């Protein structure tokens, strides 16, 4: 600043003294958003980074990038700055046409080496509400759960039935997946530290489990189904005969669809699936319909697995729901496959939701497992009365891992 530059001098003085007060709501909104922003693995996208965030951040922090961009809806919240942050808010993810994971390690796990424990997906949470262009938690409540206290969610959420179940201890060590979300098999019973269980406001169905802070290791106990061929083992016959006497309220939440979710192309896919139900099975039976749909969607003759469909989406999907878009362009990745299956099941009156998390990594004999960010995944869970939520995985391209059951009688 010199006398040679009176203009700059004036300008700098003006700039330095010019103050204006932002709305006091900015900070609470930001706090609510950051509490939600890392709810699902892969909230980061290349699209997002095109926004211009420094390259260094892109290289080092594309944690578990999937194609979706989590936008966050914050509702009421109570914030104590520097204290406990307890927003009551809801997360959602929109499907954006690109799945671009980094090659980082998302997290490491050590599964107690109990004989017969199979590979399983690591679930981060579930989406209940279809928004047409993505999925959201819907209205949720947070329940404080003490360390080692049983997480008592409704509807056999975390209690695989049958005799062939085993309780195992698991240690999870986050790496690039630094969200406070607890990752574990679907049958989590308790966590070794105080957590919040995020549950559906209506009905209490489990949505996600959140730690209070930190990205250090945590322990959990889970009940896992073991495929051992024992008489009490869960089998296809059990699911087929589960019936449709659904618990109160479940249909309201898990068969709801927004207007325009299903259009002509997706309706045609549903008809094709019904027609593909094998002889002797029943297209009106939720299990037979779901199994057939899972295989139909994963079939490369019908749909192609592709991680970048931005061009097709931009060119052909204007105004369409993700399900209708996928049925139209017939290409996509897990978000598209899973969304379409969940939507078409809902359209058929079968309660279904999206599960998000990671496919299992290769587990060593000592139970250790490294899960790469590229294993970030969406799959579908379908509710069967008396059994609970059962996973289906319709993603094609050899990516999806359908959960195989013995036939039973």
């Amino acid at each position: 600043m010199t006398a040679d530059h009176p203009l700059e001098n004036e300008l700098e003085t003006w700039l330095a003294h010019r103050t204006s007060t932002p709305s006091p709501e900015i900070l609470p909104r930001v706090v609510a958003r950051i509490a939600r922003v890392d709810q699902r693995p892969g909230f980061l996208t290349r699209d997002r980074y095109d926004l211009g965030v420094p390259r260094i951040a892109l290289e080092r922090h594309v944690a578990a990038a999937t194609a979706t961009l989590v936008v966050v809806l914050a509702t009421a919240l109570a914030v104590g700055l520097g204290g406990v942050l307890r927003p009551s808010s809801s997360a959602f993810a929109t499907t954006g046409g690109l799945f671009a994971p980094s090659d980082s390690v998302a997290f490491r796990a050590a599964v107690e080496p109990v004989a017969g424990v199979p590979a399983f997906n690591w679930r981060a949470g579930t989406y209940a509400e279809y928004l047409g262009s993505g999925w959201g938690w819907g209205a949720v409540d947070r329940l404080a759960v003490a360390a080692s206290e049983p997480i008592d969610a409704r509807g056999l959420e975390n209690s695989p039935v049958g005799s062939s179940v085993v309780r195992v201890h698991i240690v999870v060590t986050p790496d690039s997946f630094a969200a406070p979300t607890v990752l574990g098999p679907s049958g989590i019973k308790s966590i070794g530290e105080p957590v919040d269980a995020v549950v559906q406001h209506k009905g209490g169905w489990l949505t996600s489990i959140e730690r209070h802070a930190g990205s250090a290791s945590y322990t959990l106990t889970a009940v896992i189904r073991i495929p051992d061929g024992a008489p009490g083992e869960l089998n296809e016959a059990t699911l087929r005969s589960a019936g449709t006497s659904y618990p109160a309220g479940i249909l309201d939440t898990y068969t709801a669809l927004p207007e325009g979710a299903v259009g002509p192309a997706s309706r045609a896919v549903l008809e094709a699936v019904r027609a593909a139900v094998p002889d002797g099975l029943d297209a009106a039976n939720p299990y037979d319909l779901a199994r057939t749909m899972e295989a139909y969607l994963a079939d490369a003759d019908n749909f192609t697995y592709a991680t970048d469909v931005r061009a097709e989406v931009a060119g052909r999907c204007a105004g369409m729901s993700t399900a209708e878009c996928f049925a139209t362009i017939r290409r996509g990745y897990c978000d598209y496959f899973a969304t379409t299956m969940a939507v078409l099941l809902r359209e058929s009156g079968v309660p279904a939701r999206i599960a998000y998390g990671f496919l299992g990594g290769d587990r060593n004999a000592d139970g250790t497992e490294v899960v790469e960010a590229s294993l970030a995944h969406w799959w579908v869970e379908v509710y069967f009365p008396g059994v609970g939520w059962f996973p289906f995985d319709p993603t094609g391209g050899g990516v999806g891992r359908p959960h195989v059951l013995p036939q039973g009688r």
Partner: protein
Amino acid sequence: MRRDLVERARSGDRGAFAELAASSTARLFNIAELMLRDRYLAEDAVQEALVVAWRDLRGLRNPDAFEAWLHRVLVRCGHREAARERRRSARTLALTPAVQHPDSAAALEDRDAIDRAFVRLAPEHRVVLVLRHYLGMTDREAGSTLGVPTGTIRSRLNRAKAALRSELEADARGSGLAMESIR
């Protein structure tokens, strides 16, 4: 203290990040409002910048560079808000009257004049003036923040100052103010 907060936030401590955000919001808002001339767009840009910052903080190698890094994130988010707004409509934007702390009546008049002149500048001129003369960035830093060559920053800066000068002159002609102080 601040470095400690940055390190804690970088390792996922939301409380630490909230403290950082709380101490940055006013400044970020000021920058955004100067850039965008619209209170609501500015608030959106600040929110967006803080969320992006939280998400990408792990990529920040040097905690001491947090502030400069955060400003860069904000400028980019502000650009995006501006672009979005341009697409949305051509509605007129008005700068919220700023609270001034003048040291004299004459200074007040000068600053009012700058206020009026600044608002009339093109967005890219306002941005470059803010980067250089409010945030104290070098041409090179400003260039990397905006993703343009250093030479472009220099020429843009010259054009921005010329534009500011001519707006001030026009303003002075209108109000009969002497020109010495702004030449």
